[in-house]
């Protein structure tokens, strides 16, 4: 199991989807139980990775390698090649965890075409996990694109009134970005061949040649290639001004879809920036103009997202725009280009998954009962649903970055990193913290405080045990990260240091003496771990 842990985690949801296919569609109860069982199983099989990874957290490079870079389509040098470092480890754990939570939350929310719903959802899990595990760009791209289809269908079939518009917008917008990324990577692929004589999509090997592009083709070409990648990731994050698909997708998606969309899917964008944009183009990200543009877009996202959130009338749209603001912090941390900034960014991605995931669940609870997300429909909810109100308050506070809850740790680390890179960046980003309090507390006041004035709200029932069960783990993690984030920082320290090193002093390919890592990566990776 140790040697194949990644594959096991990756394919458990897929097996679940296949098993669901065998159950008659009419037997909804059995389908629900099976899907939840596999979602739980997907999470459970990822748990052994925690102690195993913890032991090896200080090891340099990717761990738990599986497959090889050219075992799939050897003629073009594409392989089923998996491996993780601390960054992907945390995101994988977030994915399996949130996947389970969202599937659990769908029990009563989805009653139409239940079988397909769960099957697509499980497939989506596999797609996202693959993105975080792939060490071969070809494989990465397959997962990157494959994951679009289930999400497209989840929004398009089980979504709200404008679901088709939202689903198509989501699909096409993301696809537009991916195409340019594909073009750029093909350039890297041939460039790698020109340098080394080897055709490969192995990310680790491309790391050694891609930074050479500016010296061979000049800065313009390198910058264009950077933007090819950047657009794909910026749309996914989404960074201002590529964010408008997000509110539509969120508003129309079913609750669980929103949770996964905000919790995990957006992180594919930031993950891409960290995994590809920085190491492939270390010189480009340090061009003052490029870096300033990145930081400016991040800061605009922070402020702009906060201001737009302030005036939303639809709860989900409000939370969606708050995501734009929060993800602005994540990208700001990335482009601070120092270790703490990257650590803070990844941690904030996890935090955002927890907090905003919870916020979407919170909205979903009310939506399921009242079938409206219009803020003005509510008021005085804490009288009729006190437990729900308490849990909501905790998650709201976590989202606005209150110390001793998770949000603060990430936000502050990013602010500090940004400050140390350039104090003005932090000064510009700080108003986002004020705005977060404003839009969240105002929302809380309008929904939860006051008297119950709408008769439809008088009979609302408080959380069921199942609903409570979806929230408690989220609160536990929020408190853990808020009180004792050290383990997370420790997991991130080594991979982040490596990226910073790659940005500042990339290990370049040298025809006379190929770096050791290249030779190792070319061999089947399991050889290393055969001893275990």
């Amino acid at each position, binding site marked *: 199991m140790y040697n194949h842990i990644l594959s096991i985690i990756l394919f458990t949801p897929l097996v679940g989807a296949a098993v669901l296919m065998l159950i008659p569609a009419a037997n909804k109860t059995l389908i629900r139980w099976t899907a939840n069982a596999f979602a739980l199983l997907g999470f459970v099989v990822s748990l052994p990775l925690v102690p195993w990874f913890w032991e090896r957290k200080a090891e340099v490079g990717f761990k738990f390698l599986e497959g090889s870079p050219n075992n799939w389509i050897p003629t073009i040098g594409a392989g089923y090649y998996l491996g993780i470092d601390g960054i992907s480890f945390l995101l994988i754990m977030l994915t399996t965890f949130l996947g389970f939570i969202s599937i659990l939350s769908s029990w009563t929310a989805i009653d139409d075409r239940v079988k397909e719903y769960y099957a697509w959802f499980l497939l989506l899990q596999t797609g996202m996990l693959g993105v975080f595990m792939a060490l071969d760009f070809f494989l990465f791209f397959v997962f990157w694109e494959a994951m679009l289809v289930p999400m497209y269908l989840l929004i398009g079939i089980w979504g709200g009134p404008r679901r088709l518009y939202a689903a198509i917008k989501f699909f096409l917008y993301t696809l537009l970005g991916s195409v340019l990324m594909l073009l750029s990577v093909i350039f890297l692929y041939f460039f790698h061949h020109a340098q080394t004589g080897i055709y490969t999509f192995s990310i680790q090997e491309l790391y050694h040649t891609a930074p050479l592009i500016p010296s061979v083709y000049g800065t313009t070409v390198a910058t264009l290639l950077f933007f090819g990648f950047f657009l794909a990731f910026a749309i996914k994050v989404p960074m201002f001004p590529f964010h408008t698909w997000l509110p539509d997708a969120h508003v129309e998606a079913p609750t669980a879809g929103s949770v996964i969309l905000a919790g995990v899917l957006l992180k594919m964008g930031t993950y891409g920036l960290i995994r590809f944009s920085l190491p492939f183009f270390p010189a480009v990200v340090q061009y003052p103009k490029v870096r300033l543009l990145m930081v400016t877009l991040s800061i605009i996202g922070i402020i702009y997202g906060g201001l737009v959130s302030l005036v939303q009338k639809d709860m989900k749209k409000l939370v969606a725009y708050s995501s734009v603001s929060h993800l602005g912090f994540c990208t700001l941390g990335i482009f601070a280009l120092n270790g*703490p900034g990257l650590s803070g960014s990844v941690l904030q991605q996890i935090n955002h998954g927890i907090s905003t995931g919870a916020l979407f669940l919170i909205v979903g609870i009310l939506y399921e009962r009242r079938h409206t997300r219009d803020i003005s429909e509510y008021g005085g909810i804490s009288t009729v649903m006190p437990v729900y109100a308490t849990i909501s308050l905790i998650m709201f506070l976590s989202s606005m970055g*209150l110390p*001793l809850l998770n949000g603060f740790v990430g936000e502050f680390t990013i602010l500090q990193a940004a400050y140390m890179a350039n104090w003005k960046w*932090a000064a510009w980003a700080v108003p986002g913290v004020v705005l977060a309090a404003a839009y969240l507390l105002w929302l809380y006041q309008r929904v939860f405080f006051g008297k119950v004035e709408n008769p439809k709200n008088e009979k609302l029932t408080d959380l069921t045990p199942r609903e409570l069960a979806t929230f408690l783990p989220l609160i536990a993690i929020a408190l853990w990260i808020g009180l004792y984030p050290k383990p997370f*920082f420790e997991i991130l320290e080594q991979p982040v240091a490596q990226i910073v090193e790659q940005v500042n002093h990339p290990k370049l390919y040298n025809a006379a003496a190929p770096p050791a890592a290249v030779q190792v990566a070319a061999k089947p990776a399991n050889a290393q771990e055969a001893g275990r």
Partner: protein
Amino acid sequence: MYFLTHIWMVPLLPAAGAAIMLLLGRRLPKPVVNGICVGAVAMSFLWTVAAVLAFLHSGAPRYEAELYTWLGTGSGAQVFTLYGGGHAAFHVGAGVLLDPLSCVWLLFVTGVGTLIHIYSTGYMSHEGGYYRFFGYLNLFMFSMLTLILANNYLMMFVGWEGVGLCSYLLIGFYFHKHSASTAANKAFITNRIGDAGVILGSLTIFWLFGTFDFVKVTELARAQSATLMGTTIITMATLALFVGACGKSAQLPLYVWLPDAMEGPTPVSALIHAATMVTAGVYMVARSNALFVLAPETMKVVAVVGALTAIFAASIGLVQNDIKRVLAYSTISQLGYMFLALGVGAFAAGVFHVFTHAFFKALLFLGSGSVIHAMSGQQDMRGMGGLRKKIPITFATMLIGTLAIAGVPGLAGFFSKDEILWQAWSAHDGQFRVLWGVAFLTALMTSFYMFRLIFMTFFGDKRMTHEEEHHLHESPRSMTVPLMVLAFCSIFAGYLGVGPSLGGSNHFEHFLAPVFENHASVEGAVAEASAASEKPGEKKEEGGLMEYGLMGLSVAAAFAGIFAGWKAYDRPGKDVREPINAAAPPVYRTLLNKYYVDELYDRLFTGRAKLGPVRLGAIGAGEAMWKFDANVIDGGVNGGGWMTRAAGRLSSWWDKWAVDGVGVNGPAIVVRMLSYPMRLLQAGLLQWYALVMVFGVAGLLWYYLLH
């Protein structure tokens, strides 16, 4: 030593109480809630006393311990480049620091906190959400004690935000009332503006010194005082911190939340919005004294803002009719005094005033709570009057508090306020004498509006309804005993800090001296001026006569205020006549409407109200951005989609008519047209073929026959 080395239990005890209330509170009966929550705070107080005694016994300058690494890994692998080019590890520890300054705060916070908890068991006994209230109070104690015990700026910020949260929760305790939840939001969001300042200030400090730790920052600042004196970076850092202090301690221009915070239950106003939380800003500035003395510009700002806030709030307090609002403005005004003291460099005097103020202001608020309790919830003083016979203990204790705040000799407020006035007069060679004038006027006003409160409430004819009068009763023992204890402290707390000019030896200042010894300021640019604040004793002997003269003046001001209040308000009749309204109605209206600042802010900054036809402020900006987002950005996206579809339709049209039409179907049509004549021949009818054949044969025959 056990209590000292486990000092972290002091905040943790109330935290445990809060956690129990959150998880189980709903099911617990009131006596159990009392036992847990009041017990936790009382134990916290006892623990503090034991720890402080152990600390004094140890003779060490401070007790500091890091409990664990909070942010970062502690490995030191991740570093930042600092302002001076050096490097510092990304690391923030969760640690505690006990030194004289935190001792003072700890003692009065846990002491007053315990009394207010006891008082609340009586005051809140008829209220819903009893466990919720005590859970929040305990959470507040945890946050406040974290703030005080923190050994670095970031841990202090944890408490700083925590008290803000509890303040929010408790102001909005009666969440059914829209005004209460709005006030709660206002408090939190206004404070967040200040918090942004604290974050930036702390980061600047880290950038400069490479650490958040108070002790290290203080040592480095003192060591580098010559090079740092008056530099822009230190001015920016301290100004940013002061923005935070303005938020938390309700100074101009961020004071607006505090009067509205009176929506919370009265014990909350006493604990959070008078005695403890609002002094956090003073604490932070005092804690950062080594930095502030290096920034003379900031110090000027602090002094001026403090003095202006003092007189501004006092003037509003002159005409307010809600008993709690009067006290709220009084609190803002007194906080202004404290900042004035800090600004002129008299840190110990400022802290001393925090200390005495905690007792008499808590007393006044709790007394007002007792009045409101007796009046069945009525807070408007115009509906009170003549209460002194009905609630004698409340009256007597409140009178002591009022005498204390008015600065009547012999009570606590006199000593601390007089010290501030003297420092404002003498510090920096009298540079700040204008501010002394402002503070002096404020003292006059304070005495006047406080006695206005006393006379309107306790003297004259009863103006309440019959039902209210019928219910009038003195409060239960649980409420009156804390009042009496606080009254005792309001008299005697001042004697801890009696200066040499009055025959004392100023124990208080000596106790705090290690925290405030800034040789930097002596050697630095303001050396001469600061000497007054550094060694007040010596200076006082020199300025002897002057000091007694000023003292006499301020005592006279106190009595003048009392006299004016008595003349104006101790009169029989059902209506209260306002002398200011009689003299100058526009001034009265302006004051009654609090200088229209809320209206101004709503129009300019929050955007809750429109300025003419346009909406400005955050909401206005949000609406503009939202329109921009929907129309321009998303319009661009949708436009892109539309263009693509239009191009698709065009291509489709081109394909259908040009490529397929002209290119493919066109030739086909031509061929088909050409085929029509041929078709006539190929109709497929046998008779036709036969006919054609007959005609053909006939034709052929005819041709051959003719030739």
